[in-house]
């Protein structure tokens, strides 16, 4: 049995010596079948203790740090598949990542696939550990009030990885660790969004912008598409949340255009933000085929979009209220409110204008009654205010006569689209 372990470490040693990062990753992954098999069979004959493993590792793996890596990997796999101890697994994986950060510092681009595997698994294991803590805390008998902060801690380790990638001053660009920057940043974005610490995501972007402005790293277009798409998706959302819709649209377009054509889930996620941004900026609605391809988006948006097209405030309000939670969590709610004022309300006023035979002079009270008809009960001053905002923002052309309590509309296209 110990022979299997030795053979495993032997392969590990060969892969390290040859800089075969993909092979190392496969061997290291805590979900790797070969590793799981060895861990389980060793456990069956009671040889799974750290001493045995360290001894075998000492015999086979030449480099001290890589040997530690191998032992850590083994411990992670053991904690997950034999000891069923997620907290131990997390500790080992975190230590493993820190160790790999140090190894990465001394080497160049070749090691990146290993870094990707380890950081990715750290994120997943940390989330599991947090779930475990949450479960334990929620149990009534628990005297423990530990916080599920493992993902937060993991983020700090991975943040360190980012620094290691960014600060490669030795290797030439083709061999630089800087090629790992966008992968790691995307991973950090995922974590920060999950944790809801958006400000940290923003500060990462700031650092990155400084680096790329200084010409320290290649432009994102030169990176693998997978890295670029994820990155653009997240910076798109960041701009979206800041109500910088033009920037958001730009980033999200790049993400969508480079997204793998079979990755429909990713396309769907991108469109989730792109569609409302597009509507708000250009009054453009998605075609039927979009709804067909992305039924989930159809459920979220179709009713709202159709209502906005018609100026059907009542339906829009109801549909929005029904989706409030979802929109708030995904940080889209504010944008949907903006669509309400900038698109739905002008359409509603237009209806009144059309109903009064396109008269250019419409009494404020007529608009008030129109609003009343769809269940919005407000006074004339409120109607004037809304009209004033629309005129100010250019959704309605004309002016308000306070004296005559009348809205005087332009002859030519009073409700431009």
């Amino acid at each position, binding site marked *: 049995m110990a022979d299997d372990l030795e053979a495993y470490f032997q392969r590990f040693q060969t892969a390290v010596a040859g800089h075969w990062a993909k092979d190392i990753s496969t061997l290291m992954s805590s979900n790797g079948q070969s590793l799981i098999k060895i861990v389980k069979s060793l456990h069956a004959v009671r040889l799974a203790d750290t001493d045995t493993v360290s001894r075998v590792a000492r015999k086979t793996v030449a480099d001290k740090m890589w040997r530690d890596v191998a032992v850590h990997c083994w411990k992670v796999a053991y904690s997950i598949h034999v000891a069923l101890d997620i907290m131990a697994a997390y500790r080992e994986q975190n230590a493993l990542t820190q160790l790999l950060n140090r190894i990465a510092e001394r080497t160049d681009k070749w090691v990146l696939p290993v870094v990707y595997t380890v950081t990715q698994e750290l994120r997943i294991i940390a989330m599991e550990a947090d779930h475990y803590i949450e479960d334990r805390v929620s149990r009534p008998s628990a*005297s423990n009030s530990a916080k599920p902060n493992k993902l937060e801690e993991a983020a700090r380790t991975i*943040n360190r990885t980012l*620094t290691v990638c960014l600060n490669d001053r030795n290797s030439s660009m083709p061999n630089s660790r800087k090629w790992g920057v966008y992968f790691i940043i995307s991973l950090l974005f995922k974590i920060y969004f999950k944790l*809801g610490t958006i400000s940290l995501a923003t*500060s990462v972007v700031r*650092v990155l912008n400084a680096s790329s402005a200084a010409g320290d790293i290649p432009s994102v277009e030169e990176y693998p598409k997978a890295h670029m798409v994820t990155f653009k998706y997240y910076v798109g959302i960041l701009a979206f*949340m800041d109500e910088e819709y033009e920037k958001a649209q730009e980033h999200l377009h790049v993400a969508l255009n480079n997204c793998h054509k079979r990755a429909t889930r990713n396309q769907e996620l991108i469109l989730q933000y792109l569609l409302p941004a597009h509507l708000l900026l250009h009054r453009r609605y998605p075609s039927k085929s979009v709804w067909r391809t992305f039924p989930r988006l159809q459920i979220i948006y179709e009713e709202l979009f159709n209502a906005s097209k018609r100026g059907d405030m009542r339906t829009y309000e109801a549909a929005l209220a029904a989706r409030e939670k979802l929109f708030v969590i995904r940080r889209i709610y504010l944008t949907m409110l903006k669509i309400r004022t900038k698109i739905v309300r002008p359409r509603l006023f237009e209806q009144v204008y059309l109903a009064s035979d396109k008269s250019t002079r419409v009494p404020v009270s007529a608009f008030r009654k129109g609003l009343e008809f769809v269940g919005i009960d407000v006074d004339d001053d409120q109607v004037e205010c809304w*009209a004033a905002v629309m005129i100010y923002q250019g959704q309605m052309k004309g002016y308000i006569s*306070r004296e005559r309590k009348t809205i005087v509309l332009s002859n030519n296209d009073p409700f431009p689209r």
Partner: protein
Amino acid sequence: MTLSSKTSKTSKTSKTTSSSAQNSPANGNPAVWPDSLKAYVGRCFASVGPSQRSAMEKNLKKVITSAIESTNLWAIDWDTRELPLDGIKAVDDGEDMLEKLKTNAKKRADAKSDSATGTVAVGAMRTSPPPPASYKATSITFTKSDQKYSTTNGQASSSISKATKRSAKWDQRNVEPEITEDSAKRKRTSIFADTNYLGSNIEQERKEKRLLRFDSPSGNESTPTPAATPDYVSATFVQDTEPEIFVGRSMKLEKKYLRLTSAPDPETVRPLHILRQTLDLLKEKWKSERNYAYICDQFKSMRQDLTVQLIQNDFTVNVYEIHARIALENGDLGEYNQCQTQLRSLYAMNIAGHPIEFLAYRILYLLHTRNRSDMNDLLIELTDEQKADDAIAHALQVREAMTDQDYHSLMRLYLSAPNMGGYIMDSFIDRERHAALEIICKAFRPDVPLRFLTDEIGFDSDKSCYEFLEKHALNQFIDESSLRLRAKDAYPTAQNNRMTAFKKIDIKGQI
């Protein structure tokens, strides 16, 4: 720390308890305890193993608190009194015991809001370290391991985890091992990362540093903490991993605020029961004198005394809430924001106060600073129950009106703001008035009456509205006879005003 740990090793008994004669009996201050009591305490600690110290502390706390409350501290014959060994096994049996201690600690935490004197007395004899105290002990340990770390890389993690474990054992609440472990890691990143500009924990680090300021400078062993004054300190109290609890001895009610640049001096720090009297005094003074500069200064020194003594209870919340309200009333958003920040973490510890009222303020404050990402975060966490609250519902409506540029609704909300929300709205209402004026000047023709403006930009009289317009050079467009504003002519000025008003604002907003 080093000094105290040495003493604790050499003398486990009560050799050092002899002290000068005391005058006032029945006092929470250990300085005036009878010698027999000090000896008693010494015996208590000597009788238990290291893992049971905290259990013993708890028992002792009970005994002494009740003695103080019944004012018979001097009446009890401590020499013959039985040791409080409830729930304490004679022999240290490791893990099992640790569990027990945890439960005990939790019970204690629940019953934490004790009477003032009780808490003081206990604090003075280092029996009940409040949470951040463990920070101090461990941070020192970690400095050492960090040094080791820099020379021999491999060993560091093990020594750190050992240190963490050790301190964790002494931690009384289970949140603490998390905190300490955390701070250790963080510290490490800050030391070894050549750049920590990624900012993930800058805020946290800053806080940590601020906390560390209260530690003795490294290398300087003679910290002016109560441990250095031998008159009442029995060496047995001091254990090598036990945090130092700082308790002041100043009996003066008032104190000028001075930013600390070195370790605080217990002679100038007021203990909790004095601070309570201070608060009453300040409330009186505020009512009668309304001198904000004085009050603000006094509150700051109170907050400082609370911080250096690591006091975090409902009194702390009370102090911060009152200071926050007074600051709001005086338009001092900077001071308000400092209080708000502290209150958030105090509320997070489930200390009683007015979290809903202050949550509503926070929403309004975020509108003032136009902090969209924090606002988004806040909205996500808002529960339906919170949304149903009047003040919060109001704040959310304000937010919606501002997003919509709906000045009509906004001004109505301004005039009907609950609690002290109006004071926060004061800070951004002028900005919104300019926005409203621009819209009105753009949309209305040919003119609008002053009366209408008064209503729509939220003034309570035409006069104050006119003064506002005058201040911002818009009165020149008002027809003096009809009191109407010529909208078209006024538009460029209004536009200018709005642009100036919406330039980046100073977030601190300090006055």
